[in-house]
């Protein structure tokens, strides 16, 4: 159960990040268009935020890592996404007046709205690796499986969002749905009794 939850969290986090990234394009388009550089700006922000999130997640895993804390990271990522719903349009509107060049406008807009949730989401994978790895010899094996689950989740999030979810739901409803699932998965992991963390050996 413990391992299943670790994989579930990593996989869902991958799903979450890509769903939000796709919707980011939708949210920016009315203000900056859907030119190639708008997508360039969004992808840049997401990659940068993830890379720094990996650093932070690895660092956080050094001090008494627990499944509960990992669940908290997942839920935190969902919560810091919510300002997008409340402030997104007002902020992008103002920004498009101040920064008239759509390249830097979209870069700033994407950074303000999506840097934090993506950064926190990036913390999930390295933290989960720490909880998963029991010893050095199997560490690569576990890390590989975790990357698989996380990136597979990203692929699923991309496909389901762009092919199906946008056909039935509004952008904000999808963001809420994603955040809701993150909270649900987080609560589930939080409630699991602190079972054997499989990596106390150093």
């Amino acid at each position, binding site marked *: 159960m413990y391992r299943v939850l670790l994989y579930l969290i990593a996989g869902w986090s991958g799903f979450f990040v890509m769903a939000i990234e796709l919707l980011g394009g*939708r949210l920016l*388009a*009315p*203000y*900056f*268009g*859907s*030119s*190639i550089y*708008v997508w360039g700006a969004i992808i840049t922000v997401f990659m940068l935020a993830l890379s720094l999130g990996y650093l932070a997640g690895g660092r956080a895993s050094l001090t008494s890592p627990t499944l509960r804390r990992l669940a908290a990271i997942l839920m935190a990522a969902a919560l810091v996404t919510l300002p997008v719903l409340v402030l997104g349009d007002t902020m992008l509107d103002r920004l*498009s*007046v101040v920064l*008239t060049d*759509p390249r830097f406008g979209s870069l700033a807009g994407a950074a303000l709205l999506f840097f934090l949730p993506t950064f926190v989401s990036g913390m999930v994978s390295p933290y989960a690796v720490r909880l998963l790895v029991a010893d050095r010899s199997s560490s690569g094996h576990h890390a590989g499986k975790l990357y698989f689950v996380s990136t597979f989740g990203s692929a699923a999030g991309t496909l389901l969002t762009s*092919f199906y979810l*946008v*056909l039935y*739901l*509004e*952008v*904000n*409803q999808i963001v809420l749905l994603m955040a809701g699932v993150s909270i649900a998965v987080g609560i589930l992991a939080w409630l699991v009794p602190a079972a054997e963390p499989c990596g106390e050996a150093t």
Partner: protein
Amino acid sequence: MRRPVMRPRLVALLLAIVGALCGGSVFADQVLIHTEHSLYRQVLVYDDGSGRCLCFTRLCAIGRQSCVDLKRPDYLVFDYTRMMLGALLLSPAPRSVLVIGLGGGTLPHALAGLLPDARIDVVEIDPAVRRVADQYFAFRPDARVRVFEEDGRAYVRRMLRTDQRYQLIMLDAYDHQYIPEHMLTREFLTEVRSLLSPGGVVAANTFSSSRLYQNESVTYAGVFGSFYNLKSNNRVILASAGTLPELDAIRRNADQLGPALSKLGVSMPALLERFTTSPDWDPNARVLTDQYSPANLLNAAP
């Protein structure tokens, strides 16, 4: 970026087959004279000696964007461009015109000829399309006809913050393969309406089949109220920011513009016959908004 012509015979054969299947090929024996990959798409130019077409797909019979008859460069080859000029029957002498989507420059060229006093602004997102329009379709901007390389919606929003308003706005940015979804929403059309002068007219080249027809119709009707709905293979929506002119007024303008338009290949009786305001769509279809805009998915649905 220019590459040698690739297997022109094979392409010609393929085109002939496609043309025969679709029964819609204007020119036979087309030869690919230019192709390049732009930031957004493949841009191809076909030529058969008498006519020249701009295409965004190798299956040119489906994806033609613009065609010119080289012997009669002012002649409008496509039905839809003739229907777009139907906008002039609502408002015969606009002095400021915005065209979103350049293509081969057919529409701005025709408008510049018909409206010698008008200023015409064209917005085109793809620098390659602008280059190709210049090199292969002799489209040359000047002091009166300007081209802006920009996303159409970003341009509209930018202009809304200035005093600039237009008496005629033409939306020609959609094609069968790809619709810029942020330019087919209630919010965008509201912005377009705000960018029109009082009584200004919008003409949109859109879709006549697929599920999208329903959503698109209710979205336009929600913003503009009643509109003229002209249909052939394409569909052209003609709407007004003020009161939609009655058919009597349309006919009067048609009498006035008839001679000028007939030089471009527009048959006025055939055009007038298409003017109808009667709704033939599902009024309960879902309105497209910035929050809900799966236009491409809906267009792919039967």
